[in-house]
């Protein structure tokens, strides 16, 4: 590094800077800068050629002005000129200016590249370094194109100076990050890996950053670095505190290098070679031992550096997760830090321990620190440390300590910082559910949660408690009693009112025997909260009231009175008004039998994973969530594939199906039309619960437009009465695809013929055949009613990029389908290149005056274009190995959705279109398949391996193909099949 003497000329610059510093106001500063800019501009434009010194000075001034936050739009050319100077300081300023100011798209790049090229080949180490720094700092694609081939050569050349090697390694790393496709290590790989053995510690430090990044992408190619890294690490760890001279930091030998080595090792599984592994374990033990030794220096820097290595070593131990002895030692070490007086250490210890908690070997050891952690949660003065403590409590929780932990978290919630309350609430809710032994404890916990932190209880939490109460009849009575008691508090949170309204509406009868909670008392209690609540809650309460009428006929008159009052029946909110009107009518017209059926108790919810978990994960990285839960989360993602809404719709459909007669009867009564629409919403409070959020904007519409099925049944009953159909608010635009259309798509992955869709009006059958990259699909539209469909039109469209991937042609069908008739449509499909999405089929027709509009996904999936390929075991494995790049492989581990019957599996795999290869996999339980996907653009060979695990009821599916998108898509499709 050249010394900068204070009198290094450039007096003009110093004067300018002190002028600026002396400016009293912003205006004065701007004035001074503008004056200077004008001066520089005229100097640059002037006829007189500037000498290097003045150019340097002016460029420096520009740089300074830029750094003060002003835009600079000239001077780039002069800076580029400085690059070709032979004076170090001038060149340096030129490069500095370019690194700071020239963005990667500048047109000047070509000129700059030329100057850099000259410097790189100059063999002057300082110039080479400057050039490399500039490449690294700009790091544009053009630069990568120009120099990516050159730099590896400089990096491994024998005669390159150490400092240049260092810069070259870092420069290459930067280029690799911006344009990985241009940096090809190939022949250089092994020589780059051997830089780990370099004499010069600086080179090793720089090289290791490069190797870490490269080996994350191509772990196999760089495998040899593991043993080299281990031996390097062991040399550093065992060296005396002064051996490494410049690289010793406060008596700690090469701390940053050690950290980097440990990090590199975390890219790989534990070494297989026993000797290497032994040596590594020895290193890790030494590091752990050193933590116990008395410090060599009192300075905080010494212990920080030492602990940095220690934490990295612990990360590695956790990553390996295979050495129980080390894991427990790591845990004990962290336990000591938990009580350390350095806040930083406490924070880090809590954080590391969180990951330790999920290892089976150390979970118990972590649990022994529970008191300390709880104490940290209570007394720690720093919110981020408290947050870590809460995370750790969450991670260490299991059945044995759940009650204690949940209680502690609840009591902490009362004083918790606002920033972390919502997350805490979610965590408490999850733990309470996960480890609930008896559900009354669960109900208590959640109600407490709402009481303490009602504002932070998201919808998911209270939906969930209702789901659970409805699905478990042993807790319903208790829940009703508890909410009743909770509601008696003079001020209770709106969420409590919601839960209360819902639960009493369903199960209020279970506590009605007690005169203290007689029906009327219950109703009055609920209604006393009514006026303080927001519209969605009021809507929910109205639904609860109508349920009361059914549960307790004696309340009927009181409730009708309420519904009839102006504040309800003339409410300015349409949703409330509509409910009041409908419920009032329903209660006065329908017979008790009908009421009992319509307002029957909710059917149990389909068992599904908690949506709270998903919410928590969205909020926060999976850091605090154990692997186990992640698995669950994944499955949940698949289950709820189309998002919450789809689940709800199917639930609505189910509840409609269970009570078909009342809605028909209601229609028969020919009452006010909307009542029919109200039936499903009254019949299933579920609609209310789940549409709360959107009530104000679309709730009304949804009520007018009940789910397709019910509107069909409505029409099917009275085809003549087209005027009683709901007002046609359906737009002419193609409807969005039905929520279940993905599911329908999955049904056809392994088969070509069948019924694609069916409702009360229409049935769509499908027959298809595929050859090479071509396919033909026959669609059969059957009119199930006795009335004709008019203006029947279908359109097939390819959304988004699918347009360029598939070529789909259809002929229009007859616009008229007579009752009971069937028409056929042929669709020709050509696969141009591989694709992921499916084409959309939109169908529109008028039936009795009402426009029907529905969209489906056509079951055209990439596997339809498979051609089976038979091959012998030897060939298969050879090809399998050839497809070894990580992106060529897609893997999924998933739970079996169907029985694991070998014959069924075989049939499905054959249906997939690949060849099922016998006697290939050494394990006869496993299935392997091979096939080639034919597209117009290319052929994509694919290999598949399915490993069932009957005991765990899980599958592991691995797909390898020459194209990464294909592997991914195939894997997605297949994971839904078994």
């Amino acid at each position: 590094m050249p010394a900068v003497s204070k009198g290094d000329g450039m007096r003009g610059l110093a004067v300018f800077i002190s002028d600026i510093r002396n400016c009293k106001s912003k205006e004065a500063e701007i004035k001074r800068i503008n004056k200077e800019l004008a001066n520089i501009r005229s100097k640059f434009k002037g006829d007189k050629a500037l000498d290097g010194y003045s150019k340097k000075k002016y460029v420096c001034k520009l740089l300074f002005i830029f750094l003060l936050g002003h835009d600079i739009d000239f001077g780039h050319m002069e800076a580029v000129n400085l690059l070709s100077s032979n004076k170090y300081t001038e060149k340096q300023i030129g490069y500095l200016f370019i690194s700071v100011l020239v963005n990667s798209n500048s047109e000047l790049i070509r000129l700059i590249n030329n100057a850099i090229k000259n410097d790189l080949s100059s063999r002057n180490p300082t110039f080479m370094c400057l050039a490399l720094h500039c490449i690294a700092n700009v790091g544009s694609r053009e630069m990568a194109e120009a120099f990516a081939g050159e730099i590896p050569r400089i990096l491994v050349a024998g005669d390159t100076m150490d400092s240049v090697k260092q810069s070259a390694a870092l420069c290459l790393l930067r280029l690799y990050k911006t344009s990985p496709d241009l940096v090809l290590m190939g022949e250089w790989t092994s020589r780059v890996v051997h830089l780990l053995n370099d004499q010069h510690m600086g080179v090793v430090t720089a090289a290791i950053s490069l190797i870490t990044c490269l080996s994350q992408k191509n772990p196999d190619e760089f495998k040899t670095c593991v043993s080299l890294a281990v031996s390097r690490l062991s040399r550093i760890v065992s060296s005396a505190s002064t051996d490494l001279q410049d690289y010793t930091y406060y008596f700690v030998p090469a701390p940053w290098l050690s950290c980097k080595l440990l990090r590199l090792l975390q890219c790989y599984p534990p070494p297989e070679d026993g000797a290497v592994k032994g040596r590594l374990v020895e290193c890790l033990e030494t590091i752990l031992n050193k933590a116990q030794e008395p410090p060599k220096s009192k300075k905080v820097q010494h212990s920080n550096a030492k602990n940095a290595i220690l934490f990295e070593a612990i990360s590695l131990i956790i990553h390996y997760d295979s050495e129980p002895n080390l894991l427990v030692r790591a845990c004990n070490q962290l336990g000591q830090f938990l009580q350390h007086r350095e806040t930083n250490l406490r924070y880090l210890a809590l954080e590391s321990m969180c990951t330790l908690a999920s290892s089976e070997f150390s979970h118990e050891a972590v649990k022994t620190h529970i008191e300390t952690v709880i104490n940290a949660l209570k007394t720690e003065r720093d919110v981020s440390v408290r947050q870590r403590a809460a995370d750790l409590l969450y991670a260490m929780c299991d059945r044995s300590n759940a009650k204690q932990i949940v209680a502690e978290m609840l009591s902490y919630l009362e004083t918790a910082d606002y920033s972390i309350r919502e997350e805490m609430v979610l965590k408490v809710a999850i733990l309470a559910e996960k480890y609930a032994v008896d559900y009354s404890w669960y109900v208590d916990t959640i109600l407490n949660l709402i009481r303490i932190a009602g504002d932070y209880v998201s919808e998911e939490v209270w939906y969930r408690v209702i789901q659970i109460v409805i699905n478990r009849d042993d807790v319903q009575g208790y829940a009703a009693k508890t909410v009743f008691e909770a509601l008696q508090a003079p001020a209770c949170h709106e969420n409590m009112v919601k839960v209360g309204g819902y639960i009493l509406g369903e199960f209020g009868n279970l506590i009605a025997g007690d005169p203290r909670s007689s029906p009327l008392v219950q109703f009055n209690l609920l209604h006393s909260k009514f006026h303080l609540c927001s519209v969605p809650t009021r809507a929910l309460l109205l639904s609860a009231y109508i349920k009361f009428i059914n549960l307790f006929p004696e309340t009927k008159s009181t409730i009708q009175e309420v519904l009839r009052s102006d504040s309800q029946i003339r409410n300015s909110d349409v949703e409330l008004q509509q409910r009041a009107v409908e419920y009032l009518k329903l209660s006065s017209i329908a017979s008790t039998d009908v009421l009992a059926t319509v307002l029957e108790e909710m059917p149990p919810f389909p068992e599904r994973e908690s949506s709270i978990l998903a919410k928590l994960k969205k909020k926060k990285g999976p850091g605090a969530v154990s692997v186990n839960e992640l698995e669950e989360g994944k499955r949940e993602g698949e289950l709820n594939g189309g998002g919450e809404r789809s689940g709800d719709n199917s639930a609505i459909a189910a509840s409609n199906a269970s009570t078909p007669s009342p809605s028909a009867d209601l229609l028969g009564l020919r009452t006010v039309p909307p009542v029919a629409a109200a039936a499903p919403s009254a019949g299933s409070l579920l609609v209310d619960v789940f549409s709360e959020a959107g009530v104000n904007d679309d709730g009304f519409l949804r009520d007018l437009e009940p789910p397709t099925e019910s509107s069909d049944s409505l029409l099917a009953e009275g085809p003549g009465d087209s005027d009683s159909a709901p007002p046609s608010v359906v737009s002419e635009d193609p409807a969005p695809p039905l929520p279940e259309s993905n599911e329908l798509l999955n049904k056809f992955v392994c088969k070509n013929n069948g019924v694609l869709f069916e409702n009360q009006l229409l049935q769509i059958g499908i027959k298809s055949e595929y050859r090479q990259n071509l396919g033909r699909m026959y669609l059969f539209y059957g009119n199930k009613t006795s009335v004709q469909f008019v203006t029947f039109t279908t359109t097939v469209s390819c959304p988004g990029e699918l347009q360029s991937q598939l070529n789909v042609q259809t002929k229009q069908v007859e616009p008229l389908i007579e009752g009971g008739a069937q028409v056929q449509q042929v669709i020709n499909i050509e696969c141009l290149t591989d694709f992921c999405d499916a084409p959309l089929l939109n169908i529109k027709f008028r039936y009795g005056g009402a426009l029907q509009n529905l969209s489906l996904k056509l079951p055209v999936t990439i596997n339809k274009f498979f051609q089976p390929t038979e091959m012998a075991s030897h060939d298969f494995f050879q090809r399998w190995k050839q497809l070894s790049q990580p992106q060529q492989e897609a893997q999924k581990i998933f739970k079996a959705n169907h029985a694991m019957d070998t014959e069924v599996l075989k049939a499905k795999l054959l249906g997939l279109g690949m060849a099922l290869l016998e006697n290939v996999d050494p394990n006869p339980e496993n299935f392997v398949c091979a096939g080639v996907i034919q597209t117009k653009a290319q052929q994509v060979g694919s290999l598949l391996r399915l490993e069932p695990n009957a005991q765990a009821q899980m599958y592991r599916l691995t797909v390898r193909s020459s194209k990464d998108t294909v592997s991914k898509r195939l894997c997605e499709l297949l994971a839904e099949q078994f």
Partner: protein
Amino acid sequence: MIKFLLMVNKQGQTRLSKYYEQVELGKRAALEADVVRGCLARRKEECSFVEYKDYKLVYRQYAALFIVVGISENENELSIYELVHNFVEVLDKYFSRVSELDVSFTSKNTYYVLLTKLV
């Protein structure tokens, strides 16, 4: 991985910034202001690591000057913490007793030190 390094004084003026990731100029100002506010608000006894959006911030205070490093989630916090100190020591040697004024007056030199140290 280090995402950015800032040197900011107590008044919230940025004395030096270095980004190792493309961040638009307009967004930088907002980011810097946000980061500084976050660090200034913290007390001595609180720990030196703050979670901020996708980053983790590691900061150290030297008199009125804060040095804040934004790192990715998986980076070793303590090693960065000490790296900052090491950086300051180098600056100290280079300028023979470094002060905020040195950094702001001769930013090009500071940049240079930074470049050679970190790239």
